[in-house]
């Protein structure tokens, strides 16, 4: 197997793509907004379903002018279905579909590992309480929070081979090969006017996997911290239309991947992105688009990490969701 470092990071980027789903905003012209990347603290209404789709397109900076095996671009599609079990407990299942392309035209493409996610909502209203089923606009001005946990199951293919019969880099595979786990929390404050503040943080860890050629790979842990401000730009009550603008700061810490127990060079580091975008609510649907760019990086071996997170020219994010 080729060394892990080149593409390892993009196996996990944007995995938890429920970010920005506005179960409340979908239905209401008033109330808090929802950013594009940062996870809002809205839970799904009891007994309601949410259908979700997201595309995260990444175009990577090239280090050399020649056509070689530099990472070129990737398309992270995410299809999801959510359900509100109670006003404070939502469950999601996500099916990612990834296409990862390198400069010489080679690519891997297909469904990645299925994700299962649970979201517990609560708020502060003279004490912490679980998110109630009925809230007035004044209740929505309270601080709202969620705790969420995610499990991926190795349903994708982690044994994809090149035409010469050798395994693709672990980062090019369409599965982690083992389960992975994530926990996180979010906080949302609507100020009762056009402005909403949203923040979240999450910790993601992976299980070591042994590939068919005997190589053992453990992807590094990841920590995310996101903060966002949304501003309600326009509403049209008759048309049930609302447009929000979003500005976000997205911090990502990546540890070092390990191969056969040895920390790998040219993996890991810290990245700060800015995401600017818009979200449109129309009836019971919501669509968002955002441009995400790395504005500050401190990668462990910056010159060797072409194709990793932090080395994108830009990312374009689009999401669509509907409640029913």
């Amino acid at each position, binding site marked *: 197997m080729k060394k892990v470092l080149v593409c390892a990071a993009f196996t996990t980027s944007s995995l938890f793509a429920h970010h920005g789903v506005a179960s409340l905003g979908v239905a209401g012209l008033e109330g808090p907004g929802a950013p594009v990347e940062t996870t809002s603290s809205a839970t799904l209404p009891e007994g309601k379903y949410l259908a979700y789709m997201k595309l995260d397109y990444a175009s990577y900076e090239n280090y050399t002018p020649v056509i070689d095996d530099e990472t070129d671009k990737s398309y992270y599609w995410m299809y999801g279905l959510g359900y509100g079990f109670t006003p404070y407990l939502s469950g999601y299942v996500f099916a990612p579909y990834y296409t990862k392309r390198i400069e010489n035209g080679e690519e891997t493409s297909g469904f990645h590992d299925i994700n299962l996610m649970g979201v517990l909502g609560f708020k502060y209203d003279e004490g912490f309480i679980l998110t109630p089923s009925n809230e007035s606009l004044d*209740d929505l001005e309270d601080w709202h929070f969620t705790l969420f946990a995610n499990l991926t199951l190795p349903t994708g293919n982690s044994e994809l081979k090149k035409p010469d019969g050798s395994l693709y880099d672990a980062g090019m595979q369409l599965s982690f090969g083992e389960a992975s786990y994530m926990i996180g929390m979010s906080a949302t404050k609507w100020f009762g006017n056009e402005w909403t503040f949203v923040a979240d943080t999450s910790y993601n860890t992976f299980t070591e996997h042994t590939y068919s050629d005997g190589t053992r790979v453990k992807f590094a842990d990841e920590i995310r911290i996101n903060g966002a401000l949304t501003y309600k730009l326009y509403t049209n009550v008759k048309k049930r239309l609302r447009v929000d603008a979003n500005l976000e700061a997205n911090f990502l810490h990546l540890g070092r991947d390990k191969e056969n127990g040895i920390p790998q060079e040219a993996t890991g580091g810290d990245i700060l992105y800015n995401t600017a975008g818009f979200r449109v609510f129309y009836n019971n649907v919501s669509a968002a688009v955002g441009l995400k760019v790395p504005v500050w990086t401190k990668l462990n071996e910056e010159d060797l990490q072409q194709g990793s997170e932090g080395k994108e020219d830009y990312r374009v994010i689009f999401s669509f969701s509907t409640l029913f």
Partner: protein
Amino acid sequence: MKKTVLFLLPFMLFGHDIWIEKNEQGYQLNYGHLHPSSEHAGKKTIEYNPENIKEIVCEKEGKIEKIENTRSYPLVIKDKCDALFIYMDNGYFTKTPYGTKNLPKNEVKMALKSWRSFESVKRIEKNSKKSIGKGLEILLLNDVKKVGDKARLLILFDGRPVEGAVVAYDDKPRGQSGVDGRVNIRVKRSGLQNIKATLRKKCDDNRCDEVVYTTTLNIEVAE
């Protein structure tokens, strides 16, 4: 709320306020605009028909007394009450191309829309947290001491929690009662509070399209 906020605006029929003012004589029932705004900069009080007052209930030290309607304008209650509830039947209204008539729709030509209106108002001096009214009623479940506190409300219809009543503060819809009849409203100004709930039901005869119940809660809040 989640799904309901979007649909609040069509319910805005909070054109006028009804409130109970405390003065040296006792309590006076007023109709008009409690807090005149740029939209309602006109006359503060509007004359009402005292014949429309169907029930006056005074709660005093846990006992409920019914008070006779003097049928004079303005209605003045000289008793001291811990809570005072006044219930009015304003009759039928029908919107026509020539204006709104105070008649049922089967008695006018070219009826566009019609409704029957019941209004009530409750002023609380000392909160027993018990129902004393009829029709639509707002129960205040906590003690609101200052601006910024939440008024935790239970909306009742004939003494039972009712879902779907639109609740407004200073005529701006802020929420809707849930299945348990509960809704919370934050107090944003000092003085006499104007918390209003509206519930619509389908009319069961040919005299109107719907019955509109509106009730107001008055409490005094310090700075």
